[in-house]
């Protein structure tokens, strides 16, 4: 279980305040959905949480350590799958190689991830030949192969059909069952409801609600939260 601490987080770009005074202290033992309308700051927040973008001010820490440290303990999946120009198997091997994991057991770990992502039959194909859903499953498997404690997912199912979405959700569930914690940004309300036990609701760069998912979906406390659930935002 990891402790996420965000203190007075602000991000400004070209005079626009894209994230405003966000404070969170959160011990995640399941799936946290980061929800909000387009442009609310979901993807930016996730990037800052992984230390990919430095905040203008404020602090982000995982178990007390700055977000720029310990990237190897987290996996990150981008909205648009980033595919290495290699076979599927070599894509999965890549993080193990660059993070200097011991060679023994790598082949087994790759086979296990191929099975989890249901890509065993495509293992030796160029990853560029995968469909959108297959490619996203591969990138999640690639993020999971180093056995991170936390998985950060930036709208992993946007533009995917329901069957592909279901396969990806199964992968997320199996990671959480192994005691991993997940932060997923999504604007798919049905998916947020299905998956999450905690919700961060962002609107125009502000964190308006941070609460148990069932409470948020049953009775959001802010006007913006109600408007968002009603489809008015």
């Amino acid at each position, binding site marked *: 279980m990891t402790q996420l601490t965000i203190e007075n987080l602000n991000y400004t770009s070209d005079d626009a305040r894209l994230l405003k005074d966000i404070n969170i202290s959160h011990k995640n033992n399941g799936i946290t959905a980061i929800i909000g309308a387009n442009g609310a700051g979901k993807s930016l927040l996730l990037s800052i949480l992984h230390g990919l973008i430095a905040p203008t001010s404020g602090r982000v820490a995982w178990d007390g350590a700055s977000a720029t440290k310990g990237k190897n303990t987290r996996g990150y999946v981008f909205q648009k799958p980033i595919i290495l120009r290699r076979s599927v198997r070599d894509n999965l091997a890549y993080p193990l190689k660059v993070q200097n994991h011991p060679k023994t057991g790598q082949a087994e770990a790759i086979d296990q991830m191929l099975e989890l992502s249901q890509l065993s039959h495509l293992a030796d194909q160029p*990853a560029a030949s995968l469909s959108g859903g297959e490619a996203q499953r591969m990138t999640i498997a690639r993020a999971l192969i180093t056995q991170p404690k936390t998985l950060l997912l930036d709208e992993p199912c946007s533009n995917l059909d329901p069957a592909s979405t279901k396969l990806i959700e199964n992968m997320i569930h199996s990671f959480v069952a192994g005691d991993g914690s997940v932060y997923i940004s999504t604007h798919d309300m049905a998916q947020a409801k299905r998956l999450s036990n905690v919700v961060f609701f962002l609107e125009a760069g502000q964190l308006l609600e941070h609460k148990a998912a069932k409470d948020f979906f049953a009775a959001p406390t802010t006007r913006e939260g109600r408007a968002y659930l009603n489809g008015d935002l």
Partner: protein
Amino acid sequence: MSILGEAIDLVLSADAELGGIVGLSLRVSLTATLIASILAIPLGAALAVWNFRFRQVLIVISTSLMALPPVVVGLMIYLLLSRAGPLGSYGILFTPMAMIIAQSVLIFPIVLALTREAILPINRDYKNLLDALNVTPVQRLKTLIWDARFAIVTALLAGFGRALAEVGAVIIVGGNIAGFTRVMTTTIALETSKGNLQLALALGIILLSIAFAINILIHWISSFGRKYQVTR
């Protein structure tokens, strides 16, 4: 028998003199390609990936140098290696070593610019992932060079082809000494002027065949590389 017929006969007869000339040409140009690539591939990758002082200046210079006239390179190396030059004491002017140096200088900007161009789009695609995986700068360069390998091999073949076909630089620094620094192109120039067209044409046929083979190889490697490119 026609000149062409005699030339073909010469090629097929595995003539020792002809073999020596072809062998030296290949040895000089392959070594030059190897030396140029050892320096140009990492530097080309670095120019594609990192922003540093004088980067733009280096890019402009390297691109301009792609069109470097071989005779000018020959002249520069000649001045460096001649008795009065700064490297004159090594006594390598009019040796195959001098020809290798000249061809390395000639190929270097080609491999550099083509490597940089091959790596730019891959770096754009990979940047976020490599940042997220926290790879070291050296791992980043190795990854990009490996995944651009098909385009880089194509660049090397282009450089090799250019080295093998040039005449201006090697004739100046090699001196076209029979049995020592005489390569295919310099022999063609000399034998044509002497009227020995059979040997010139025989070497021309071999040069053309090698150029043709290189182009087939480039085409084949490129089509293989395309399988790994993401087109979405």
